[in-house]
Structure formats: structure tokens, C-alpha cells
């Protein structure tokens, strides 16, 4: 293998190792020994907040959802089969979770619709519910996925300025991230060592090339 190719591959492996090491270490620091992954976002658009199964049921562990109103008003969290939740909210303004940024810890919210929220409190489709003043917490298991979580005020009043936090806990994640960091460290160490050991060869090769170039120009 030519020395330049070997150097390039070494640099690439070193870069990959450093990236894996930094990301692994970052996630280890964020997760902590308890292995809790958490993302949150604040919805400013008026209306209810919807968490679809793409995010509610994307991990095989229970998800702890917390909704907090800045004005301290009532908050109601409910979970229903997705088709039923869609049918109930079809004509109302909602902010739907459309992306999770991890390990940055952010949630993307996509506002849509414009109508007022109908009275959904009498419906029997809700499997789980939690209500609170200012804040409410609901732990959603994955037994009956796919489901959709809806955050409302408990009546037709539109929510604004609500912070939604989703958290998952799995201790195995901490050790997986630790293993990831270790693998990155080992990869980076080997690659950097190889680059360091191979630095004499390119120097000799460079001097020979310089001599050859000088002969051509004369």
C-alpha cells in the first residue's frame, strides 16, 4: 500500500475514533449512571400537543412524559390508539412532535390545523390519563403500541407556552455508551500511533521526490 494512502486511511481512522470517543463520552455524561435519556421543547403555537407513535413507541422502554404550563393552568395528558386520537383532533390546532435531537436534547414541533379543540373528555378511547395544575406527568408503557399522546388543557382552551419533556430510562444505555467511548478511544489510539510511527517514511519519500524533481527541471 502506498505511504500516502496508508496515511490517509490512518487519518480517517483517527478521525472516526475521535468522533466515536467524543460522542460516546458525551452520551455517557448526559445519560449518567441511571441511563436516562431526555429531550424537551417548548410549544409557543396555540393548540394541543401531539406525540405520535413514531416517538412515543420508538423505544422498547416506558416513556415518562411531563408537560408544564408556564401560566400554571390545568394540564391533561392522555394516551389513545393513534387512529382514535387522529379522529378526535382532526379539525383542531395541534403541535406535533416531528423530530428528536439527541444527544442535543431537543424536540422539533410542527404546528398544523386551526380549529378549536372539541370536547374530548367524554371519549372512552383514552387508555391512560394524568391531570395536574401547572404540570402533569404520565408514564406510558409500550404494551399497547402504537398509541398517540395528547396534551390539552382538559377543556377547549388552547394551550400556549407549554414545555414538553420526554424521558426514557435504561441502565444498559450507559454501559453501551461507555463501550462506545472505549472503542473510539482504542481506534483513535491505534490510528494515531500508526501515523506517528509512519512519519519517517513520508519524509524519506519526500526527499527522494524532491531530488527527482530537481533533476527534471535541470
Amino acid at each position, binding site marked *: 500500500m502506498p505511504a500516502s494512502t496508508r496515511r490517509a486511511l490512518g487519518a480517517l481512522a483517527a478521525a472516526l475514533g475521535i*468522533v466515536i470517543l*467524543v460522542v460516546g463520552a458525551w452520551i455517557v455524561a448526559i445519560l449518567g449512571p441511571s441511563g436516562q435519556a431526555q429531550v424537551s421543547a417548548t410549544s409557543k403555537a396555540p393548540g394541543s400537543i401531539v406525540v405520535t*407513535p413514531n416517538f412515543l413507541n420508538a423505544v422498547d422502554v416506558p416513556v415518562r412524559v411531563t408537560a408544564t404550563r408556564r401560566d400554571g393552568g390545568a394540564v391533561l395528558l392522555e394516551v389513545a*390508539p393513534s387512529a*382514535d386520537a387522529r379522529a378526535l383532533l382532526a379539525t383542531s390546532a395541534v403541535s406535533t412532535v416531528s423530530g428528536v435531537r439527541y444527544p442535543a436534547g431537543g424536540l422539533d414541533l410542527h404546528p398544523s390545523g386551526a380549529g378549536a379543540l372539541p370536547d374530548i373528555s367524554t371519549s*372512552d378511547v383514552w387508555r391512560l390519563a394524568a391531570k395536574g395544575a401547572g404540570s402533569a406527568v404520565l408514564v406510558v408503557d409500550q404494551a399497547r403500541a*402504537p398509541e398517540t399522546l395528547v396534551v390539552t388543557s382538559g377543556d377547549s382552551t388552547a394551550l400556549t407556552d407549554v414545555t414538553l419533556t420526554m424521558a*426514557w430510562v435504561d441502565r444498559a444505555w450507559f454501559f453501551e455508551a461507555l463501550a*462506545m467511548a472505549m472503542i473510539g478511544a482504542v481506534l483513535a489510539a491505534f490510528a494515531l500511533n500508526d501515523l506517528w510511527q509512519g512519519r519517517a517514511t513520508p519524509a524519506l519519500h519526500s526527499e527522494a521526490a524532491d531530488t527527482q524533481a530537481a533533476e527534471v527541471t535541470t
Partner: protein
Amino acid sequence: MTGHDLMTKSVAAIRLRRDDLISHDLTTRGAAALRLRREDLVRVISFIIVLLVCVVSLVTMASAPGWGGTHALLGIHEAPTAKTNSAPLTVDQAKKILTRAFTAAYLGETTTGEAANADLMTAYTSEGLRAANAQVKLASVQPAASASPLLAPHPTLLAVSRGFGFPRFIVAQTLASEGGLPTLHLLISPDASTPYRICMSVEMVPPATITPFDHLSQGSPLVTSGTGLAVAPATLLKLYAAQMVFPAKNIPKLPFAADSFASQLQVGAAGVAQAVSPQATFAQVHKVVPNSVYALRQASGDALVFGVMERTDSFGVKPDQNVNTAANKAFVLLTGKKVITKAASITTLEFVVFAVPRSSGQATLVAAREQIVAGSGS
């Protein structure tokens, strides 16, 4: 001409030196310009590239939604698809619904005023509500509400619907604490925003039994056609209503077995006709209430069919006759009339439940109940 000569002549034509096109010498000259050794410049450039790759990768991983690395680490996957062969609600949900509906039914039947009306509307729907309202209205002349089978303390959940379509149903059975016949209850939810309410409550006819439904976690499918059954549910109810008409008509090849409920009605109609014959004519018709027939598949493949018929008893008073109706307290309570001179009618709802075999054979009546709901006279 060799390749070397060709390149030299070509660069001469564009007034460049051949070495200007060779990156090897560009690097060397760049290093010389920066007063560095060539390999030091290569190392610096390599380091900058590695640094850039690291930074770009980290920023992407940290901020891009759905990045594969964290997905793999946290086990993030696509959401599972909805199962079509599961119940839309849990057993706990179904039991809470039953408790709510039966409590509201009890309160509605044992109290009075606006709250009682609200309770009845919480508990019942459609013909069930119509019958419950009439039962409350006629409580003074009919068996007291304390005898209601809804007082049963522990309803037995028999079946819930399967899949996420509508209407959805719950079937429950109660047995009054003081004994008596078990009662079957059908609760219906027509859409996502409407809660389950009692559509009908029907006392079982001895010695009928209910064969098991599929497991509650799977739910039981709603039968929408007669496919796979000895007789289509709608046809069964239509023929059952037709054969009970008075004056009687002969209908051949009935798809159901004879039962005590129908025979008692026919005997009763003949008795009424004979009793009023000096003063009035009497006729009785039965019609299936539209959208009242629900058939639920059982584990064996048979079906339990619920239906409601509306019976109209019509009296035509003969000329120069006055009929005293005081003896019929329900009629007086509903119409306020104690004497009729022209005509009268009494409307009664008939709730029936049939067991329909899956392939051949006759359907059998397993539960039946009637409730006077309206009357008119002139």
C-alpha cells in the same frame, strides 16, 4: 511523441511550467513559502482536515434528528403497526366503562329530576334510552326499579369488539343479588368521540346459555353480513318480526326454533283481540327498528345477534262504543286518557337476543324483554 513531451508542450502553449500542474511540487513550493518543511505542511493540512471532519460529524450527530448512531445506541426503531386482531380497549377500561354506565343507570332509575335525566343519558343510548325513560315514567305501575337487574354488584364482562373500526361494543352479563334470571347488556360506542352506553339490557330465557367469546385481549369481531352463518342477522330479525303479527300469518321455513316469548305474545294478542271484540278491533304488528341489529362472532364461529323490534298494538273502536281504559294503568299514564271512542295504539319495544349457528340449523332465542314506551288514543 511520448506522454512526457506532450505534457511539456501543452503547458508551454498555455504559458505554464509543467511542474505547476503537479501537486507534489505545489505542496513543496507552498511549504517553502510558509518556511516549513514539506512533510510538516502535509501534517498540518491532515490535522486540519481531521479536525474539520470531527467537528462536522459531532455537530451533525448532536443536532440532526434521527441520527443513526444514537438510534442504534438507544434501540430506537420504527413504531409498530396497529394490530387488527386486538381489542381497542383493555379489560380495565371495559370494566370502568361498565361501572360508570351501570352506576349512572341505577342513579337514573332510582332518583328524580334533571340529575336523573342526565344519569339516564349517561347510561343509555338509542332504544335503550327510550326504554329506560319509559320504565322510569311507568315505575308506579310496573315493577319497581329496585328489582332492576342493574343493581347486580358485579357485572361479568363477556366480550369486547375487535379492531379499531366503529361501532365498538361491550357485552356484559349481570345476575341480580337476590337471584332471578341473568341479564345480557350490549353497550355501543358509535364513534371515537361518543362514549359507550347501554344499547339494550335483555333478560335471558331459561334454559339458554351463552357460548364463550374470543379472549378479551383479542376482542370479538362484529358480523356485518350473514356470511358463515346459518341465517343473516337482519333476515332473522325480519322473519321473527313477521311471524309474530296478529292476525297470524303462516310463514314457511322459519330459520329459528319456536320459543316461549313469541308464543306468549301470540297467545296474549289472541286473548286481547277476543276480550275487546265486542267494542273494538285489534291488530298487532312488529317491525325491526332500523340500525338496531348487532351480530357478534363467538369463539366457536356461531354468532350472538342482538336486535330491537317495535310492536304496535292498534285498537279500532266500533261505532257508538266507548272503551274504558282505566284498567290499563300504563296506557292511562302514557296518554292521560281513560276513555277512547275512535282508536288507540300502544307502542312497545321488544329486545331480543338470538344464538345463530355458524353453518346450518336454527337460531334459538336466548334473551327477550319488552317495554311499553308510548301510547295514543282518541
